[in-house]
């Protein structure tokens, strides 16, 4: 296979927060290259810098050192569903369509389609505070897909959903990604989900946040969550995470 | 650095004369002449209209005159002197007198001599205004010291007349040096007159209102000023011939401007204490200004820079021409 275009690159990226002396080092020397059409999933302990990395890719923050390269329009789905509270679910999505340059006449149909994908067709006219936590997350997911970006960054997008809805959305996301040739970075704590979706899984370690392990997932699609292949790879990843954290713990508390 | 561009040849065309006055009793001739249409008919004869504007405060009138937003105005002598002094004698001229008298020191029961005032508090309408200066001057003549900050033997607390009346009823002040109709109002509230200001002046007259015009305007449109003066004289005539009718006209004008009118009894009593005359009583104005300088409320150097007093403050030729026409004595 011919090497596809490079869409995202982090080159020796470090990021720290706070004043020079007492800084929190969130990322240290992170190298990462993601090519067009790749579906990369990132797993790692809580607080290891996953969200920080996505923020850097999305241009919301600047690295303290190193270089970030981004090659195209980026959509980011935040870890905490950030819906505009004064807009209904429909309007929240419409806003993204508007900015994406979708013609006014096409927006209604597109909103309906997206809401159907996340199974919220009946909830279009509710405001965020009238939705459950998981529903809000799904609206945010729909909005993220509405952005029409070639690069999609998702920060635990299905964390608040039940297994059934998750499964459904795995399929939907997979087919959309394939149909539109999207490049995806997908953060999750669910190892099976990481293997289920990813062409490649990146395991990050913490303190400081860095890449500790990478694995391609050459499994054929469609995949199913409870396949043995996925289970065994997920178990392997879990063990690596445990090993990584175990070391830390010994040194730590 | 006053730079009046006084070139009579370059007189701008005007269609209206902008006249200012206050809804005050002391501006009665202006109120009557406006109310009765005297100004209007005189101006109409020279194809001009009248734009009357009522004001609430002297400084705004001065600013408006300075800013070419107003041509002439009824005004108290103090703002007139200020305007003259601040513009170094350039901007304004007094073209006629209007009102004289009508101010007194009223005090509460038990105060019967000047000496009784020691340690007491009196109000005046405003720091540095005619009554304020008169009060300070009179007190110092009585051997009672005052100062601008309200200290001294007698504490002077300038405040609006209505607040003063409230303070008087609340027992917060012991008297006030005020103009009409406030003298009458204080008397109605139980005060008595300790010193009528009229008694302090030769002939019992001292200026309380004049007509002040822009110098440019007088130079460029003497006919318009003459028309205003005619209307003014007509109002003075009416006041002389029909006091009741003029009082009614004043109250009507006040009601039109302010929505309130003065109790006719108070008005009648106040009326008695005032004289309406075209004589600007320039000597009393000069004396009053000297008093103001001596109590530190006017700067001598400003007056000197303006050319002294009366200096060029008065421009009475037009008035005197009218008076001569009527066979009356000239004023100065």
């Amino acid at each position, binding site marked *: 296979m011919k090497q596809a275009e490079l869409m995202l690159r982090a080159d020796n990226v470090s990021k720290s927060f706070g004043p020079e002396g007492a800084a929190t080092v969130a990322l240290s020397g992170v190298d990462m290259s993601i090519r067009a059409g790749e579906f990369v999933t990132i797993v790692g302990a809580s607080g290891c810098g996953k969200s920080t990395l996505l923020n850097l890719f*999305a*241009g*919301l923050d600047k690295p303290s050192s190193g270089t970030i390269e981004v090659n195209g*329009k*980026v*959509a*980011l789905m*935040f870890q*905490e569903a*950030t819906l*505009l*509270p*004064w807009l209904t679910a429909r309007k929240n999505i419409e*806003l*993204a369509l*508007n*900015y*994406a340059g979708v013609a006014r006449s096409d927006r209604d149909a597109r909103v309906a389609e997206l809401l159907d994908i996340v199974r919220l067709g009946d909830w279009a006219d509710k*405001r*965020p*505070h*009238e939705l459950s936590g998981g529903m809000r997350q799904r609206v945010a997911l729909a*909005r993220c897909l509405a*952005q029409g970006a070639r690069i999609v960054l998702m920060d635990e997008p299905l964390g608040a959903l039940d297994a059934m809805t998750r499964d459904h959305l795995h399929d939907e996301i997979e087919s959309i990604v394939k149909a539109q040739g999207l490049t995806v970075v997908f953060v999750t704590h669910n190892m099976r989900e990481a293997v289920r979706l990813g062409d490649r899984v990146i395991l990050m370690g913490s303190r400081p946040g860095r890449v500790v392990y990478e694995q391609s997932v050459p499994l054929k699609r469609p995949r199913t969550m409870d396949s043995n292949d996925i289970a065994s790879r997920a178990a392997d990843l879990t063990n690596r995470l445990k090993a990584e954290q175990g070391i830390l713990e010994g040194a730590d508390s | 650095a006053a730079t009046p561009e006084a070139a009579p040849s370059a007189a701008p065309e005007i269609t209206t004369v*902008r006249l200012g006055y206050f*809804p005050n009793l002391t501006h009665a001739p202006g109120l009557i002449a406006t109310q009765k249409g005297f100004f209007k008919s005189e101006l109409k004869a020279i194809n001009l209209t009248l734009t*009357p*504007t*009522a*004001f*609430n*405060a002297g*400084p*705004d009138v001065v*600013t*408006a005159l300075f*800013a070419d*937003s*107003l041509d002439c105005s009824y005004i108290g002598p103090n703002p007139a002197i200020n305007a003259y002094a601040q513009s170094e004698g350039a901007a304004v001229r007094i073209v006629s007198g209007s009102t004289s008298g009508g101010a007194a020191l009223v005090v509460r029961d038990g105060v019967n001599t000047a000496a009784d005032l020691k340690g007491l508090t009196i109000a005046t309408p405003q720091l540095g205004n005619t009554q304020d200066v008169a009060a300070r001057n009179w007190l110092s003549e009585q051997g009672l010291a005052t100062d601008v900050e309200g200290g001294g033997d007698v504490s002077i607390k300038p405040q*609006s*007349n*209505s607040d003063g*009346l*409230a303070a008087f*009823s*609340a027992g917060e002040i012991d008297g006030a040096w005020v103009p009409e109709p406030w003298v009458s*109002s204080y008397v109605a*509230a139980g005060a008595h007159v300790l010193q009528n200001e009229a008694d302090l002046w030769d002939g019992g007259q001292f200026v309380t209102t004049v007509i002040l015009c822009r110098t440019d305007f007088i130079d460029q449109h003497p006919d318009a000023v003459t028309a205003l003066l005619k209307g003014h004289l007509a109002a003075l005539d009416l006041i002389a011939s029909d006091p009741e009718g003029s009082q009614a006209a004043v109250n009507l004008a006040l009601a*039109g*401007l*302010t*929505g*309130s009118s*003065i109790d006719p009894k108070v008005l009648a009593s106040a009326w008695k204490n005032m004289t309406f005359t075209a004589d600007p009583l320039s000597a009393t104005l000069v004396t009053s200004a000297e008093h103001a300088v001596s109590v530190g409320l006017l700067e001598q150097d400003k007056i000197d820079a303006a050319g002294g007093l009366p200096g060029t403050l008065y421009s009475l030729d037009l008035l005197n021409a009218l008076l001569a026409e009527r066979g009356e004595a000239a004023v100065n």
Partner: protein
Amino acid sequence: MTINNASRTQTTFSARNAWAWTWPKLFAIALVLGGWELLFLSEWRPSYVLPGPIETFDALFKMAGTERFWLAVKTTMTRAGTGFILALVLGSIVGIAVARIKPLRLAVGNVITGLQVMPSIAWFPLAILVFGLNEQAILFVVVLGAGPSIANGVIAGIDHVPPAFTRLGRVLGAGPIALYRDIVLPAALPTYVAGLVQGWSFAWRSLMAGELLVIIAETPSLGTTLDFARQMSKVPELIATMIVILLIGMLVDSVFGTISRKIRRDRGLAIDD
């Protein structure tokens, strides 16, 4: 602890609610009037400085019976409305510009409050110089009174927009105008609306002073009515005018209050009560 079905009682809604809404007001009014009448009857001050409620309401009704009064209300409300809307537009534009453009904020951020504390009368000479003796001069004073307050309200509102929203806007690819139109300003709206009440108050109080700048015979106004009632020591008329001003203020407040409640309800900010 047992919590029972409580919202069942919502059926008798209208009658009970109306009463729950009314009695506190009636009670407050009764309290004030009663205290006032007692004070009056105690003859603490002579009646010409402190008239009783009866005399005052008599003056109020007499006043309200005149065409002049309604003309005054109309003039003043028109001026207040015009001035407020002008101040709203200008203040909002300045506020947004200052909040958004950092050098501008450093340059004139503090000046806004500097202008806000300037008493209205200080502007009179400038108003006369620039506009002459007319309505514009009055509006100028009103706008200078209320504009800075509204601008400060906008700035405060924008400053306190949760960064999550602005970050979202950037991620969605909103341009600078869209970001403000669709995200920052709506997010700042509750603070903004709360600030408008302050802006209105400034506008109104500046107007009360500004109306004394020029008194036009055929156009009475509340500012002059108030001032002349005071100048002529007509205490019943003074208090009557104060009551009118109070009522108008309350009316305007309830308009803003309704807007504010609607906003809060829409955003789920007022869940209970």
